[in-house]
């Protein structure tokens, strides 16, 4: 088992004919993902890699291919439209990789999405991967992953790869890895992802990687305390960041006490999570927790 995606996932790629979209669609297919359709307005009728049909509209692609996951590679100015189009077609899982979407566009999209039975992952995220299901819906290098029973959830891209690399090199495989995104407003929170891991019988342990900005880590801490039944190893990066400066991610900015790394670490520690002392210790900490289980 896995969370969010599995052997029945039928993926459509919005922006499949673009530079990034085509590169990553191919890479997902090579990993074993069932990419059933592409969408690029004006390019309907083409075939991607001689086998994946390209459509002009998401609704049409869903009708003809029964796609149930959309992976979005569309530039920031047009990505809100792409997300809304996927939601309008009721694609249950929408994964938006795009970085740089105006935050007020996300503010307006959020209530629209809330009225529909859809889940958005991201934006500004690496996507998700379930090695146990050989399904990759994102931009992460598939080769570093190993099937296993540890879940990973993170606000970052390359730092997630670092975490997975450390886990895999110690023989700790992953059930699913989800990058929830580095923007201030994202569709799926740590708590949402933790709930899914809680219900997944094939995940024993979760590695949670947070960073400065916002208070998603405190929300996660509250949920870990209340209802999460599995051990959590937690890392929060950005302890060295000065206040008021955006550290790359639009969401990684210290605007108040809660946004600081130490406040988040304290909340997670008090909730019972095992704190990963430095980013070099992700694998070793998970290994120690697994050894005690």
């Amino acid at each position, binding site marked *: 088992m896995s969370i969010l995606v599995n052997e029945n996932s039928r993926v459509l790629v919005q922006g499949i004919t673009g530079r990034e979209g085509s590169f990553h669609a191919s890479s997902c297919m090579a990993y074993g993902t069932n990419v059933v359709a592409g969408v690029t307005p004006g390019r309907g009728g083409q075939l991607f890699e001689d086998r994946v049909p390209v459509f002009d509209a998401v609704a049409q692609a869903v009708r003809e291919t029964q796609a149930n996951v959309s992976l979005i590679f569309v530039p920031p100015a047009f990505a809100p439209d792409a997300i809304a189009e996927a939601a309008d077609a009721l694609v249950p899982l929408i994964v938006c990789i795009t970085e740089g979407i105006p935050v007020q566009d996300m503010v307006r999209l959020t209530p629209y999405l809330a009225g529909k039975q859809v889940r958005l992952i991201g934006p500004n995220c690496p996507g998700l991967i379930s090695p146990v299901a050989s399904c990759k819906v994102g931009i992460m290098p598939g080769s570093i992953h190993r099937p296993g029973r540890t879940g990973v959830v993170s606000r970052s891209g390359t730092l997630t790869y670092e975490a997975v690399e450390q886990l895999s090199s110690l023989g700790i495989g992953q059930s699913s890895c989800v990058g929830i995104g580095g923007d201030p407003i994202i569709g799926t929170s740590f708590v949402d992802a933790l709930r899914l891991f809680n219900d997944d019988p094939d995940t024993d342990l979760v590695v949670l990687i947070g960073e400065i900005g916002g208070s998603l880590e405190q929300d996660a801490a509250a949920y870990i305390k209340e209802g999460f039944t599995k051990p959590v190893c937690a890392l929060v990066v950005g302890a060295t960041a000065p206040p008021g400066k955006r*550290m790359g991610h639009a969401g990684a900015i210290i605007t108040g006490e809660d946004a600081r790394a130490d406040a988040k670490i304290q909340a997670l520690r008090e909730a019972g999570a095992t704190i990963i002392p430095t980013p070099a210790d992700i694998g070793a900490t998970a290994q120690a927790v697994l050894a005690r289980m």
Partner: protein
Amino acid sequence: MKIHEYQAKELFSKYGIPMLRRRVATTGQEAAQAAQEFGGRAVVKAQIHAGGRGKGGGIQVAASPEEAAEFAKGMLGRNLVTPQTGPEGAPVRQVLIEELADIQRELYLAITIDRTQQAPIMLASPMGGVSIEEVAASNPEAIYSQMIDPLLGLMPFQTRSLAAALDLQGDTARAAGQVMTALYRVFVENDCTLAEINPLIVTGDGAIVALDAKINLEDDSLFRHQELQELRDPSQEDELEARAAELGIAYVKLDGDVGCLVNGAGLAMATLDVASAAGAAPANFLDVGGGATAELVADAVEIILSDPKVTRVLVNIFGGILRCDLAASGVVLAYQRKGSNLPLVVRLLGTNVEEGCNILRESGLPVTFADSLAEAAQVIRESG
């Protein structure tokens, strides 16, 4: 992106927010002329991007045009140090000359995005004129808020509720409501991350006036606001940060001596934390991005090497779309251009890692390789 008070006020005036008569001056003479026009007495306000100007002597009340000129000359061409600027301060290139106000009450009004509620929030307080952080710490009950439904916008009942909370009545309450509505339009139509009036004053005859104006614009939205891009003032930014921003590189200057080159923001923060945990102080945050070319990596390394505090460089690249060989070539190129010989600690992983390591090995640069973050930390610790 931050803009100056005078620029924010120009924006406010387009939305009908009431303000005092004011004029931008770049010389003492211009300051005196403006003060003369306002009846002799005037306030002289240094234009810098940081707050806390009053505490740094950047806001002075002049009793005559001569004194206005004197204050202006004292500020112009110098760096103003405030509690928010750091010890070097920020350069003053304009002053804003404003007529004096008849202040009866000082209020606070602002709009920002509430990340938890994922919606805009309007904040108001009867305790204006001091920083809202101080009010939040000392009198949190004196901050009133209204969450705004982004599809409805700020509704009139919400402005009435806030005006009542601020203890405003009659025409004054109505005028405050109009300012709130206008401020919400400023916020939405210009893609602000913050629009703040502190203080918003009530005058002796019950009028509402914006005495200060602060606007932060969202960087990711500037592509659709050509006119706002022109408000950028690079003199207020760190020189290296401004150069990085032009190249599309996320770079934040810090105080330490370990220059850091990383791909990915999360990994970059993590790399700084690893260096700190190893007892070293990072000189910068730098995310060169996923789609970087060797040329862009070289530009990034040149920025790192341009910081005189840097004594060694830590490279941490998780190669994916950015291949390790391209990253390595970029590093070598920058070292050659700069003629630098600073020691490098290099951790490469992922696509074309062997090729990348070979390029660095054959370059003759003083490189120590690390296979993992833990090893990199060890090398940093030992090179203390």
